[in-house]
Structures are given as C-alpha cells and as structure tokens.
C-alpha cells in the first residue's frame, strides 16, 4: 500500500514518456528510470515485512530498538531519492 502511494507520487510528474524497450545497451530512458525507482521502493518497503516472519500483525513493532536497521533504511532511501 505504501509502495503504491510512492509509485503514484513518482509517476505523476513525467509527461508522455516513450517506451524504454528496444533502447540500445547503456542507454536509459525515463521509462526504465521509473521502473527502477518503483522496484527499489518496493524492495525498501519489503524490508519492513521481512522483519516479522511468524505472521505477526504489526511489522513495525520494536522498530526503534534496532538503530542499525532504521539508519540503514533511511540511508538507503535518501541515497536512492537524492541520486543524480
């Protein structure tokens, strides 16, 4: 659900992109950039789900008790979003 919101926000701002399929190797268009961003966002939010594996309801429980986890998560998110 969170990912859908993020993808919607990211997707809103691009106009009339041409399809990225069929481009030569090493050339990357707006289309594949969107796909890449969406993929990374889905992976990032899946990290929360991967914390709880016994079917618990609340995946965010005890998230503040592991500083390594949330600092890495924030760092990855920042470096993904702020990348040129």
């Amino acid at each position, binding site marked *: 659900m969170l990912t859908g919101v993020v993808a919607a926000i990211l997707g809103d701002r691009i*106009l009339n992109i041409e399809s990225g399929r069929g481009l030569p190797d090493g050339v990357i268009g707006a289309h594949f950039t969107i*796909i890449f961003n969406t*993929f990374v966002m889905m992976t990032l939010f899946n990290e929360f789900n991967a914390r709880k594996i016994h079917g618990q309801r609340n995946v965010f429980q005890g998230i503040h008790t*592991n500083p390594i986890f949330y600092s890495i998560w924030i760092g990855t998110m920042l470096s993904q979003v702020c990348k040129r």
Partner: protein
Amino acid sequence: MSILYLIFLSNQAVQMLWVNLIMDTLASLALATEMPTPDLLLRKPYGRTKPLISRTMMKNILGQAVYQLIVIFTLLFYGGNFFILVRFF
C-alpha cells in the same frame, strides 16, 4: 526479485551495482542485526522435520514476489500509457 530484475530489466551498470552491491548487502546487514525480543521465549520450538522456510514465510515471499512482478510488468508494458500527465521539471 533482485535477480529477476537484474537479468531482465536493468541495462545500466549503475543500477545493477546499486541493487546488488549496496541495497542487498545493507538490507541483509540490517535484518541480521535484529535483536531478539522477550516474545521469542513464548514461541513454540520448531519441529525437527519442519522445513526451514515455513508456510507463513513462503506465503509472504510468494505474495510479495507476485505483487512486485505485477507492478513491474504493468509499468514495463503499459507504462507508456499511464504517464500522460503534468510535467513539473
């Protein structure tokens, strides 16, 4: 999912390196440093012949994989029709 993405979609080295080297190693590091909680003492022991990936885990994995594949493939094949919206930059 990362492997599928890298094989089929990524055509740029930076994306490959970012996903595989940085994100996956950092994610495994982050998940491996989870501290045990007191709730762990209430959990029943695993059976000797139980699979390593339990039914719940497999459900989560497959559900997430199908979800991500649907989103990615929708964007890949129909993405050009979606984004006919406002240009900000």
